[in-house]
């Protein structure tokens, strides 16, 4: 299953894929590109990934969710350049009951943020760029000067 896509994510199709006659509850999470981060205006960003590992890691997360709850889960994560308001990630969980749907959906987005090798480079209104790094103070690290470069 290809979870990483370079085209706009079709949320309706994802919801349809986890809907079934026996499932009465669908919880979804959609992450959109925000126009700000850490007090700075964001104008655009770019997601990149270690694609084979990211696909495998997402697959393992979805399997873990389906093992812990009686649910069906779909996920798409976008790669490449995204504009403000674009869907960056979408998760849809179909379940018999709402508690399972909410719990599994929350589990999946938290696990994706922790375990999947995807990176985000933001471009700001002032023309500068940075790598998003949740472990850094301020949440970003500066773009690096290439080895052997002028700096």
């Amino acid at each position, binding site marked *: 299953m290809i979870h990483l896509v370079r085209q706009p994510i079709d949320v309706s199709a994802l919801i349809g894929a986890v809907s079934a006659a026996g499932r009465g509850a669908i919880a979804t999470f959609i992450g959109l590109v925000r126009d700000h981060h850490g007090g700075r205006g964001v104008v655009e960003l770019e997601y990149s990934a270690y694609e084979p590992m990211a696909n495998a890691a997402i697959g393992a997360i979805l399997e873990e969710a389906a093992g812990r709850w009686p649910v069906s889960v779909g996920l798409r994560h976008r790669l490449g350049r995204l504009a403000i308001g674009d869907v960056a990630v979408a998760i849809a969980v179909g379940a018999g009951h709402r508690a399972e749907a909410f719990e599994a959906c929350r589990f999946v987005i938290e696990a994706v943020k922790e375990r999947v090798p995807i*990176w985000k480079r933001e471009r700001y209104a002032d023309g500068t760029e940075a790598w998003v790094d949740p472990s850094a103070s301020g949440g970003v690290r500066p773009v690096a000067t290439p080895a052997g470069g002028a700096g």
Partner: protein
Amino acid sequence: MPSVQVLLFARYAELLGTPRIELSFEDGATVGHLIADLRALPGGNSLPERPFVAVNLEQAGYERPLQGNDEVAVLPPMAGG
């Protein structure tokens, strides 16, 4: 000597100036030795001391022995979702 492919991503690729390096290693060398070699390259000292590493698509510890043709990926902090 055997060698491995080292993949670098995002900011780490910028620091080293390349997304991919082939590094040779001595028998018995581990992931930890490889990271030390990498940090000795131009730009490599800006890497953290213990970056997250995957070998053949799986998270790997620093004591893991290297094998010829391993694909070693050095991964910056993840920022998906």
